[in-house]
């Protein structure tokens, strides 16, 4: 069991406790940024899981949008409880991933990325035409209840935040443990040499399918949180292709080293986006694009690599100084 309680576990737990306490002191707008960070971060963890196999999806807005629109449809049907919505939105997106996974697990590289994109654009095309869901204008999401309890005013957002951090914590931890399991570790082997994995008796396609379902579930959950946070869903901000691009952006920004880093990356993205939009509305895309280019050029493994870089340097410095000492002792 102690194998599971590693640094990342304690890091995530500390983050959970910290955010739970912070919740009481946050201002309204900060909580909104926090909720959006968690929503996008969840999708990015799903993409991280896929990326470990060397696969990138340019269409995860499909599952994100599916989760978000499930909220809209269930509210029309009269269901309004956050826990039911989270469960259903995640499950529906997961089921979609199970189905599509049978197909997509056969694809690699750019074909995988583009087929995902094609599916997300099909959903976009459908949603833009369905009038009962508001077509391109989208549809409003009303306030939700918490296991039947109705919260008002500021406590509503606080409640939402608590639910979001708890669910994000559980999901991130599950993803982390999955990545440490044999099935999770195997995926890196799939990236390095798929044929060899098959010869060892494992099925590469099944491993990829499992990853695809996990990423679908996480993206669906992110979609539910986003829909409830924003209070509105529309095809352009939930399913259009640049939305998928943003998710990949966050994954690159965070690097694939650790699930915890993904939330940090998502927070950096969210702050960058909010402040760029606030202070330079004419060039916010330019700022985002510029930041992404800088990361690709100078930090190819994402923000997480700063940490390992720093560690390496310290290790090198340490070994040097001990060598020096050894040399000095030799002189004596």
């Amino acid at each position, binding site marked *: 069991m102690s194998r599971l309680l590693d640094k990342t576990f304690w890091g995530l737990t500390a983050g959970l406790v910290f955010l739970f306490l912070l919740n009481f002191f946050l201002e309204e707008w900060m909580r909104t940024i926090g909720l959006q960070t968690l929503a996008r971060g969840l999708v990015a963890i799903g993409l991280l899981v896929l990326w470990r196999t060397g696969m990138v999806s340019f269409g995860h807005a499909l599952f994100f949008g599916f989760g978000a629109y499930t909220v809209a449809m269930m509210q029309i049907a009269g269901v309004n409880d956050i826990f039911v919505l989270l469960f259903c939105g995640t499950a529906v997106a997961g089921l979609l991933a199970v189905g599509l996974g049978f197909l997509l697990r056969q*694809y690699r590289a750019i074909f995988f990325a583009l087929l995902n994109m094609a599916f997300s*654009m*099909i959903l976009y095309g459908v949603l833009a035409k369905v009038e009962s869901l508001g077509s391109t204008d989208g549809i409003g999401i009303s306030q939700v209840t918490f296991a039947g309890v109705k919260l008002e005013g500021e406590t509503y957002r606080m409640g939402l935040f608590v639910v979001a951090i708890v669910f994000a914590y559980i999901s991130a931890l599950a993803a982390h443990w999955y990545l440490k399991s044999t099935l999770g570790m195997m995926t890196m082997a799939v990236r390095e040499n798929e044929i060899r994995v098959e010869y060892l008796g494992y099925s590469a396609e099944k491993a990829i399918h499992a990853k695809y379902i996990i990423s679908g579930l996480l993206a669906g959950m992110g979609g539910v949180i986003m829909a409830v946070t924003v209070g509105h869903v529309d095809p352009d901000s939930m399913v259009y292709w640049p939305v998928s691009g943003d998710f990949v*952006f966050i994954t690159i920004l965070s690097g694939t080293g650790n699930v915890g880093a993904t939330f940090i990356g998502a927070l950096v993205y969210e702050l960058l986006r909010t402040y760029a939009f606030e202070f330079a509305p004419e060039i916010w*895309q330019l700022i985002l694009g510029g930041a992404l*280019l800088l990361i*690709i050029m100078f930090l190819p493994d994402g923000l997480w690599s700063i940490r390992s870089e720093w560690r390496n340097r310290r290790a090198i410095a340490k070994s040097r100084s001990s060598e020096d000492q050894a040399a000095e002792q030799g002189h004596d």
Partner: protein
Amino acid sequence: MDFELLIVILVDGLVYSSYLFLVAVGLTVIFGVQKVLNVTHGSFYAFGAYLAAYLIGLWSRGGLPDAGGFLLILVSALILGLILGIIIERGLLKFLYDRDEHIVVLATFAAFLVLEDVILLIWGTDPYLAFQPLALLGNSEIAGLIFDNYALTMIALSFVVAYVLWYGLNRTQFGRILLAVIYDREISMAMGINVTKVFLITFIIGTFLGALGGAYHAPIISVQPGIGVEVIVLAFAVVVIGGMGSIPGALIGSIVVGIARAAAVHQLPEIELFVIYGIMALVLIFRPEGLFAPIKARKI
């Protein structure tokens, strides 16, 4: 379905196909040679449309003859091909050729975001109209429906572009060098081909084609923010359907998509938006290499 409707769908479809072809062909040329799925292509299109609309506006306000608009379209595409092509290839892609293909796509996505705002900074958010060349050519009636002659010239332009590219690739010295580079970059380098130069020239040609698509399109659309975002996914779909990197593929792909969309618009408007991506998904499912991808020799 009656015969007249069939004609209308056919003509409408071909007009739309030629629009798609002009945009997609540049993308497929760049992919074929450099193996880069270039999202920036959407910006090339938008830049072309803006520059052409802007120049045509200036030109006609100066009281010069409307026919000059066609020259301006060509000039703006050439200028943009040279400027943007060199900036993006030398300033960005050059550093990324040995990186993972997804990273390269994402880098061009980043450059696309940057260029979107550069367009807004230069031309602002107001839409531009450049109707002069459209008005000059008038319109004609086919099967009871009015078609702009300008839109019909687009079909001709597509065939000219397709022929010139085919000729350039198969009948000229540069085309043969290009084929060698496509087949094996390292061997052609060893044979003394300056691959860096070939890449740059190809990218400039691709950029020129993207800008030309936008510039030639400017008179029939309202040139406004967001046109690049819309166009690039369409171009992706066409290129995937035809087979990435294949010029005849782009031609067939755009005809398939164009006619399917026209049929949807006239018969089933509800599915208009996703019919294209539906075809794209079907093609990827049954023929992932595209309908007309060239057969590749397996390299070890």
